[in-house]
């Protein structure tokens, strides 16, 4: 700093060195490692958005990371800066003189206005392309009608039964084939819900009077956990469902089984009454 007496600056440096920075860092690192290893499994969840089971979830995870890393870098910069400033410029007993009264530096301020603006502008293209690609309705997708009611999910497969009838899935149970896009038509007869299978992709609100669509694709066969994400009343927390992704053959077999069960009993499996 201009105007800071060399004597004072030397003293400050000495002070900085006296802080056991290395030890502090080592301790923090150790603590972090201990936490991660001891809590082995604390990051695993059937709804973890970071263990994607399909293309879309993978994309969403990547675009999140794309912003997370620069954000983390800026955070470390700011926090590091704050720690540095506090250590370097804290007032000591011996300090009598007041610091130079610097009022600003237009060029510097313009720089830290424009630089973040440019960095942020760089996010715009991936955001827009991401939105558009998610918005596009896939052509040869399997269509599933989703009805969210207080507080259950009903899935049906339009036109896949005999004579173009709908095939109903058991309540709160969704079956989808792997490797194929599935288009969900979302419908609610009561309040707003939100359809979400975290490991397969983003969520879309299920609005009464306003039918949204969304698509997902499961690449890995398996069981995926889904949950209503929009607060919908008393039993919102219980509005969960299971999505079972299986090979196309297995899926077809399941579908046939459902058709047989429905025609056999015809008990009006349609628990959910649309409006």
């Amino acid at each position, binding site marked *: 700093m201009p105007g800071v007496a060399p004597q004072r600056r030397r003293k400050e440096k000495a002070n900085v060195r006296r802080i056991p920075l290395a030890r502090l860092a080592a301790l923090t690192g150790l603590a972090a490692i201990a936490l991660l290893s001891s809590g082995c499994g604390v990051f695993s969840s059937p709804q973890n958005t970071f263990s994607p089971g399909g293309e879309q979830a993978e994309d969403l995870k990547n675009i999140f990371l794309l912003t997370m890393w620069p954000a983390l870098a800026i955070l470390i910069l700011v926090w590091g800066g704050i720690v540095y400033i506090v250590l370097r410029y804290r007032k000591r007993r011996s300090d009598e003189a007041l610091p130079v009264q610097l009022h600003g530096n237009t060029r510097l301020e313009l720089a830290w206005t424009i630089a973040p603006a440019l960095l942020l502008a760089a996010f715009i293209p991936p955001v827009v392309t*991401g939105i558009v690609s998610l918005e596009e309705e896939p052509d040869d997708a399997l269509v599933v009608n989703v009805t969210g009611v207080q507080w259950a999910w009903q899935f049906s497969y339009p036109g896949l039964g005999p004579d173009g009838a709908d095939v109903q899935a058991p309540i709160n149970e969704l079956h989808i084939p792997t490797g194929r896009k599935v288009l969900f038509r979302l419908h609610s007869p009561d309040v707003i819900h939100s359809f979400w299978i975290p490991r397969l992709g983003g969520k879309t609100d299920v609005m009464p009077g306003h039918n949204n669509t969304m698509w997902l694709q499961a690449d890995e066969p398996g069981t995926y956990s889904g949950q209503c994400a929009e607060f919908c009343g008393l039993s919102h927390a219980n509005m969960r469902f299971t999505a079972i992704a299986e090979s196309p053959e297995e899926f077809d077999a399941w579908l046939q089984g459902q058709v047989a069960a429905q025609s056999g009993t015809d008990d009006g499996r349609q628990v959910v009454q649309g409006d």
Partner: protein
Amino acid sequence: MATIAHPGRMTFPQAMREARGAAAAHGLWSWITTVDHKRIGILYGVTSFIFFLIGGLEALLIRINLATPETAESAFLTPDQYNRIFTMHGVTMIFLVVMPMSSAFFNLMVPLMIGARDVAFPRMNAFSYWLFLFGGLFLYSSFFMSGNPFTGDGFINGDFGAPDGGWFGYAPLSLERFSSGHGMDYYAIGLQILGVASLAGGFNFIVTILNMRAPGMSLFRMPVFVWMTLVTSFLIIFAMPVIAVALFQLSFDRLFGANFFNVAAGGTPLLWQHMFWLFGHPEVYILILPAFGIVSEVLPTFSRKPLFGYPFVVFSGVAIGFMSWGVWAHHMYTTGLGAVANSAFGISTILIAVPTGVKIFNWMGTMWGGSLDLKTPMWFAIGLVAMFTVGGLTGVTHSIVPSDYQQQDTYYVVSHFHQVLFGGALFGLFAGIYYWGPKFMGRLFDERLGQLHFWTMLIGFNLTFQPMMILGLMGMPRRIDHYPDGYGWGFWNAMATAGAFLIAFSILIFIFNFFYSLRRGKVAGADPWDARTLEWSIPSPPPAYNFAEIPQVHAVDDWWHKKYAEDPSGRPVPVPAGAAVEPEAQHGEDVGRGIHMPSPSFMPFIAALGMPFLGYGLVYHDDPWLRPLIAVGATLLVTGIMGWALEPATEEGSGAAAH
């Protein structure tokens, strides 16, 4: 405004009134009738702090419920109780804590900082406070309004009557069909009352700031806190009418069978969401900008150097104010607005990060090269800069629309806005309490207890809200009252609950510190921090008339420049003794005699009292015995306003009250 009357010309009734005024200067009546901005500020502060404790208690209940995996049956609260508690937690913290606590600082500080003797409309100011108090009490009375309100049996049996539709009150869930009982009626009408309170305050502070600055204080010599008050007030007066209409619509739907949000009649739930967030996003900045203002005062004072880039900080605040109107739909990415709308709002949300970032850098520039006096207010200000940065950066990740499809309505969002509203607004407000508190207490807070408060709160805060970010990414949705085993969320939730209790502990330290320092604290004196702005040029606590002589302002940080001159190298040197202004010296025995302040009035209280009566009458308008409450409320309101209009604003004959 007061004018100076010649003591010799005092009329007899006037002298009588003055004697009576002196006798009534203390006691409950004096508080009910006060129009002194400082007393109103204190009322605002104390009331909002009590609501803060209640809202905090609700937060603890929420955290207890979520600490471990449970079933709906085994959880501490029933789902119904949980929904009411989290709704009231949100409503309380936003409308009854952060907004009024900011108002407390507007009231306490703005007239002092601009060199005025009071606000432009002192009685409207009192009206604003009483509306806030009665609105808050009205909302909270809903807890007891299930079962028999006179015995409170409903409440005692755990049947809370409070609103249960979330602070955001999304229709159609908030309609009578899905939310029976009167909870959401209290929500709609209670927020309406609080909205009027905010509006009255907003008008008052804009007029005060634009019209009542001391001579020489141009807009660009105003302290940044005053600037942020101005921007916030403009946001209030333009945002509040929008939510007022939305709340009217909800009330009409619930109470009188209107169809605004009735899907069967062709209505759309999106109407509510657009209106709510068109208000709701400016509201976010209404909550945070005052804290930004506080920090922009605290950092320079304790860095012992001026704010780095004053114009940038001011302009970025104004820019945020404007841009906050163009980002509301980022609360609605998943509602199916379409690619165009989502892209547009994504981009505007990305861009609003720029002026926010500017502030962070300017604050760091302020500290850079300073001589940091690390007292409690400074720690809280630094805490805000550090913690708000997390909130800002997580905010940027929300503007990335596709990844928001994952994070929307998860604990990631909960984490984000607590970083902003707790790490930002509350840290800033605490910085303000420790910084300006001594001005009104006359005594300094205990420094060790203050710093203990800061560090426990900082640790507790991070322990509570950082795990929530992980929980959100691990797929935990918001507003669920329980979660079963097997989701892997137990560990982080337990950590968050532990953190919440640590925060609660830190608040206990603060309360103890407050009462301890009020009695035993070091005497503050006029200018304990060797600070920069006008409020430190007058005694602590300030006299009723604030300034015996209205100051002449020559520069930003005028008070500092009265104390220090700069040598050629830019380093300040104390102005030679004798020339320096001794703050206390100018207030001798007789100073201030003959300055006539606005007369106390109970009319604002009466007028405001009418509102909750109107509210009860409307909520229970089906009941022929309770319906007359509407008439009672209207009578009180009209009586209060007529009385207010007819009584003179200041003492008769003082020359000021011409009619």
